[in-house]
Each structure stands twice: as C-alpha cells, then as structure tokens.
C-alpha cells in the first residue's frame, strides 16, 4: 500500500486536508491451562485509517484487509466528511511541532521469539510455580497467556507529518492455584526477559499462600493499605481520565478550572513519562505524529495542566503534549497517558501494615475499572486482602467491596506513599496508606 499516493489522491479527490494512519502487528500468542500449553497462534495484520477534512468537516474510513479500489475508499471518506457537521474548533491535522525524544521501545529479544520458544517459556513457568509451591502445597498454573510481537505505527498527513515507530509488545498474565487459594500476576512491557516471567510465576505462588480461607469482614470505614498495583488501578480508572484535556473542555472532568489549585495530597506527584526504557507506553511520537514529552500534570498535589491531543491543545491555546492516541485507525485521537509514574515516598507496604490499628491490606481486586472519573468515585471488590489489627494479620479477606472518592483517598485521606515502586503494564506506582475507605461486607 502506497500511503503517500493515498494521501495525494485524497487531496486530488477534493479533501482540503488528509491524514493516513497505518498500524501493524506481527507476533504470537500462547495459552496454558492446568499446567500444560494448550494453544499457540500466529498473528499478522495491518490496519489503515484515512481521515479527511473538507473545511471544518471531518470524516474517516478504516480498513483491515485488502484495500481493493483505492478511489472508492477515498470517495467514501470524503462523502462522510461532506455529510458531517462542522466543528468550529477544528484547527487541522497535526503539525510536526517538535522531534520526539530518544526512547527505547524496541527489544530485539521479542522479535527473535518464535512459537516453539513460547511453548518452552510456558513449560518453564509451570515448572517454576510447582517448584515454588514445594513446602506450601500443590501449586499449579491454572491459566497463562503470553502475547508478544512487533508493532509498527506510521502517521502521515498533508501538513508534512511523516513519522514511523517500531515497538515491541510483551505481555504474560498468569493465575496460579495453590490448594484452596490462588493469585494472579503479570509482566507487561516492551521487554522480554525469561527470568522476569519466571519470577512472576513464583511471586503468584508466594502471594497465593497468603490468602487461604479468605472471608468477608464487617461493613464500616477502615484504614486501608493498597498494594502498588492496586494504586495504579484506581488512579488509572478514577483519576487519570480527568486529566484529559478533552474531558476538561467537554464538561466531563472535575478538574476543569482548577489549574494552580491543590487537588490531591502534597505527597502526590503524577507524571506522564513516555521515555521510560522498554515500558508499555514508551513512544517517541503519539498517534498524530506529535513528539511526546515528559510532564507533571500534578506536582505535590497541585494541578499544573492536562494532557493534550493536537485538537485540544489548539483549542486551549497551549502546546501539544504528544498525548493523542487512537482506539481504532480512523478514530479521532484522544488525550491519554503514555506511562503513569507516581513519585515514591518512603516506607513500604509491610511498614504500613504494621502501622494499621484496624484495617485492610488490599493486594488485588476485580471491577476497579468501573470507577467513575467524572464523579471521582473509586470502587472495586476485594479478592485478595488481609484484615489487620494492631499491626497483626487476623485473616485473609475476600468478598467485600471498597468505595470512596479518589480525591479523598489520595487527598486528605492519604497517610503515606511508599518507596516500594512496582513498574508494570505502563504504570510505575508505590503502595499507599489511606484512611476513610468505605467497606461493604
């Protein structure tokens, strides 16, 4: 597919501006169940999006598969644009305002993995879990999924943007059963290190041993220690969307009009960092071809700004921040984070646990993504927790829900952030000690 030709043909057919977005992926996936590799698959696909603007009317077409008649595709996009309504705020497709930073988002070890290697990896992580289980009970990998491969993104538009990024993707998710307990772990980034994946397997077994015979606790208001991964889950679902400039502009963010004000505890600094080495969100350019930047939207609790797509930056009269990313090839880029980083404090989860007079330590939940960033309401059901009194663990906990305002939890209710950072799935967060969490049990 000659994407330059597609662009020039779109302009020739009547578009005032045009943008082509091509995303490709080539890789493998392996699934293990009950301790044995069950399936391996090979994936290879390329998807293309064409967006055109006629004046301030924008339309798009996405194609996954053979393009066929190029002219027909272009005419369809133009027809959609012509029939659309005008966006008075439309400032055109992105201009290349700056070069992207030097980042490392490609690990050749990922590119060298074949299907036979994935089978071997899964065999090893099953063995590792069984080994770790010796002395604790019968440990088995109930399920494991590895997906890895090489992704490519190319963006070009009629304003001169032409960038291409190649990156690697590796995700291994696994769940281990240990007698009457279980735990899930993952390793998701751009890197592939066998030892790291095996350590995830061992870690899941060790954690599973902590939650045998879990029961609910009484309803009430508790002090809660959140494990680093749980901190990432709640910030990503209940807080980060409020930092999207589009949500601010469109009345969907409680942070609108609050730049310069304290919105969280002064213990909290939230960073968007596209430069972390070989992490999931590491990129030199966003999906509009704008160079990414490291930024601190929240610094010691104070709101300094939002994350932008090109459209929102122009609308707010600000510099684009390189945060325009797409869900599908012909969709409008939406402002979203690259990698979330929360600056660590001091202390560790174990220290906070010892400081609990009566509270919960939450290691894993389900349903955290149902939290509402518009209201700031955080909520989830705890699947792996501990009830602690006077610093001593009384019992494992499951089957309770926790709710509250994310602005309280990480605001006046925040006692401490730990130094025990865990970096995984595009987030780098420490544990947190929070007061005033509502528990339903």
């Amino acid at each position, binding site marked *: 597919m000659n994407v330059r030709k597609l662009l020039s043909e779109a302009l020739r057919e009547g578009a005032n501006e045009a943008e082509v977005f091509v995303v490709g992926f080539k890789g493998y996936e392996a*699934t293990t*169940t009950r301790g*044995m*590799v069950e*399936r*391996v*698959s*090979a994936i*290879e*696909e*390329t998807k293309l999006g064409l*967006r055109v603007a006629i004046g301030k*009317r924008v*339309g*798009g*077409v996405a194609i*996954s*598969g*053979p393009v*066929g008649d190029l002219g027909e595709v272009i005419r*369809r996009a133009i027809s*959609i644009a012509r*029939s*659309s*309504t005008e*966006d008075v705020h439309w400032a055109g497709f992105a201009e290349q305002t700056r070069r992207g930073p030097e980042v490392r988002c490609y690990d050749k070890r990922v590119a060298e993995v074949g*299907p036979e290697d994935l*089978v071997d990896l899964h*065999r090893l992580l099953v063995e590792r879990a069984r080994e770790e289980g010796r002395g604790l009970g019968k440990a*088995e990998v109930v399920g494991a999924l590895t997906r890895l491969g090489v992704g490519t993104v190319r963006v070009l538009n009629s304003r001169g943007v032409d960038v291409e990024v190649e990156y690697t993707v590796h995700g291994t998710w696994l*769940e281990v059963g240990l007698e009457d307990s279980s735990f899930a772990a993952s390793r998701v980034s751009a890197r592939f290190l066998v030892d790291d994946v095996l350590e995830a397997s061992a870690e899941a077994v060790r954690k599973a041993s902590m939650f045998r015979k*879990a029961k*609910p606790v009484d*309803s009430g208001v508790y002090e809660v220690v959140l494990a680093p991964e749980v901190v990432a889950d709640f910030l990503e679902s209940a807080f980060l969307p409020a930092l999207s400039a589009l949500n601010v502009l469109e009345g*969907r963010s*409680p942070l609108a009009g609050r730049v310069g004000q304290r919105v969280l505890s002064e213990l909290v600094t939230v960073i968007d960092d596209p430069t972390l080495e070989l992490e999931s969100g590491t990129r030199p350019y966003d999906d509009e071809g704008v160079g990414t930047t490291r930024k601190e939207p929240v610094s010691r609790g104070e709101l300094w700004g939002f994350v932008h797509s090109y459209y929102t930056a122009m609308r707010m009269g600000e510099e684009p921040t390189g945060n325009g990313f797409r869900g*599908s090839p*012909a*969709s*409008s880029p939406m402002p979203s984070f690259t990698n979330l980083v929360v600056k660590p404090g001091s202390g560790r989860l174990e220290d906070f646990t010892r400081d609990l007079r009566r509270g919960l330590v939450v290691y894993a939940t*389900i*349903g955290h*993504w*149902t939290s*509402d960033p*518009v*209201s700031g309401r955080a*909520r989830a*059901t705890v*699947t792996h927790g501990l009830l602690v009194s006077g610093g001593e663990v009384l019992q494992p906990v*499951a*089957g*309770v*829900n*926790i*709710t509250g305002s994310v602005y309280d939890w990480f605001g006046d209710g925040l006692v401490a952030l730990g130094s025990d950072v865990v970096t995984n799935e595009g987030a780098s967060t420490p544990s947190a000690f929070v007061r005033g969490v*509502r*528990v*339903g*049990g």
Partner: protein
Amino acid sequence: MPAEGSPDPWDLVKLGERLGAERLRVFVQRRYSEVFVLDNGVLRQASAGYVTGLGVEALVEGGLGYASTNELDEGSVKRAVEMAVRTGRAVARAGRKVRLAEAGPFGKLAFSSTFSSEPADVDVSEKVGLLTWIYGLLRPRGLSSVTVSLAYEKDERTVLSSTGEEASCSYRMVGLSIGLVACSAGSCESLRDQRSMVAGWEFVKRFDWAPFAEELAETVIASLRAPHVEPGRYAVVMDNEAVGLLIHEAFGHASEADIVLSGGSVLEGLVGRAVASELVSIADTGVVEGGAFLPIDDEGTPKRRTSIVEKGVLRSYLHSLRTAAEMGTEPTGNARAASYADQTLVRQTNIFVEPGDWRPEEMLRETKRGVYVKGRGSRGGEVNTLVGSFTFTAGPSYFVENGEARGLVRGVILTGSILETLKRVDAVGRDLVVSTSVFGGCGKMGQTVRVGDGGPHVRVSEMVVGG
C-alpha cells in the same frame, strides 16, 4: 464465502491436510461498521470501517495451532496455513494433546438475521441529523456534557471444516447510546444508556428516542442529590438489566468449560448438584428476542439452547468442540472468537434467567428493607471464577423500606459469591427481557464479543452492597 481475490478456502483446507493436519478449520470474516459520535453538539467521530480477514486452526498430532492474516493474496494465506500447522506441531511437541468432537454432520448451513432497511444505505446526514435532534432535546436541561452516539455493524462469518461442514452466519446490529454528565455545587454524576437491536434502520426509526433521552436526563440530575448507599448487606430486588449482569458474571463465566477444565472454576465437579435456589433456571441460547444473533459458533457448530441450571441444579457447562471431547459430552455451540485474528474461547451467547411467576411490584411490596437495583447506567462487572467472587455496578437505584421505594441512591456496587448468591434467590418474576449492545460486550483474555443477557426481575434475600 471466499474473500475477494484470495484462493478458495476449501483449497486451504486441503493444503493443511497435506501438510499434516488431522483437522483443519478455516474461518473467514467480513465486517462493515459505522460510528458517529456527537459530543456536545460537535461531531467528534464519523467513520466507516471495513474488516476482511482469514484464520486457520490446525490440529496436528493432537496439538492445536492457529494463524491469521488480513493479507489475502495467495502467498499470505498459504503462509497462514503453514504457520497454523507449525504452531500446532509446537504444541504437540511439548504441550497438551487434545481431541475435537464433531459438530456435524450437517453439510452446509447458512443463517442471516432479518432486517427491512439497510443502515449502510441511509445517508450520513440523516444519521447525524438524528443525533443532533436528540442533542437539541437535551441541551436546555443545563447538563455539563451530552454525548450521543450511533453505531452499526454488519458481520459475516464463514467456517469451513475438514470434516466437510460449511456454516455461515450474517447479522446486522444497530444501536444508539446517550452519555450525560450533570454537575451542581462542585459535584458531578455521569449516566449512560443505550438501546441496540439485531435489526436494520427500521429499529432506529421506530424507537421513541425522546422519552428515552429525557428520562435519562431526569435520572442523572436527580442522582446529584441522592446519597450513596450505606455499605452493608441488603435484600436486593434487581430489574431485568441488573439480572442479566448478575447471571453473566455470577454464573456465565464459571460455566464456560474451558475455565472449568483449566481448574479455574468453582463449579468444577458440581454437575448434578444444587448450586442455586430451586426457583432459578438459567439458559444460554443463540437466538432470542432482544439478544445477539448467534445461531452458530465460530467452529461452525449450531448453537443449541443449553440449560445450564434447572431448578437450582447445575445441568451443563458451555462447550466448544475441544471441551466437549474432553468431557465426553455434546458440543453446545459456544466456541467464539472476537475476530478472524483470534482463537476461539468458550463464551456465552444470550444468557438469562428463565421466568417465574412473581410480579415485580409484588416483589417490592414484600421487601422490608433493601435496594431496588437498576441496571441502567451500570458500568459492567467482573468475576474471579477461581476465588468464586463476582462484582457489578448498578445505575442510580432505590432504597426500599417496608415495601416502598424511598429514594434514589447512587454509586451502587454489588459483591457476591458464585456458590452462595444464587442460593439466596427467593423470588423470580414473570417479565423476561433480554438485551444486547453494539457498543460493547463481554471481555475474556483480551477478546470482546457481543453477548445478550437478561431475565425477569429477581430478588436475592441478601447481598453485599457498597456505595
């Protein structure tokens, strides 16, 4: 249905067999979709999507392999067959050897959903005009944000098997979604609802969108003043939508046989045992009014109505050809893939609670203290089938005292146990409703598929409610 310009899929089946596959399945998909999003009066998105792709599953020496491509020239599709055989061999070498049951013999099957007006032929200006009209209805309400979306998809799938069967299925689904945000005195609430149908444009033309939109606006504005429900254990009366969420999360996933066989389901080994109140019967079926259109699965197996629970007793899991062979039972037509690029997993189709004989108003009248849980506005649910816990959220709901709804409550989240919650069902209504959505679906191992779910009103004598 061969994809244009590519080799005949039956030739690919023969190629796979020549390369050593003892079973081969070729899966071809074509999908056309449209999305229009009007965001506070601005058309945020207006796009059409075309997907064409091919997947090949090969059983080689007992190992299952899969490969897919959306490059449909002869070289690429042949490479896909070769890669499917290679990945199957890799599994056979060091992984689990499996058998596959036979879905047939049924020869050639073809299914197509019905419609009278093709949405793709409706002019974009009419579609955008509808969204603009709805926005115009809501704008004077003083809401902070109004998002109105229209989505349409036409999905065509064909499955060819080396056992000689060929099955194809085509459906059209269209829907409209409204998302609202209301703010007052520094506090904001959001609420979203949608209506979708397996149908053509005639559904959109006939549906009365004005009261749907206006009622949603009234509810989100009222919810601003509503308290959060006090966390605790309550009797819970659930409406049809909430029951659908309950059954999908509380039971549906745990009854998927691939999860059962992996050792990941608390329902393992319980067929024939009481797992719910005897008032509860749960079925999963491919075609039902209001639901998704799934008469065959993505292995080409005709979807039978599966009685998962009958009067409280677990009767069956949901099966693929692999799980049916392993468990020595009949396949149920529940092997589904999000697209040609994905391997099949065992998935629900349309799952619902069978109706009983209570009237919903009777249920409420006989509830001393509880919560009337409304599914509209739910953000979804999740389950951990190994721990045995599930959760889902509700929209603005009502606190019930002495048989009367006393006031709105917000932020509702429910927590339950797969093995305990359904045993506490003490009333099942007669008002069965099943619904589906073109805007989302069910997620499992990174794959999202369309599903339907629902039921009549149901009361659970005790559940953990948070707010």
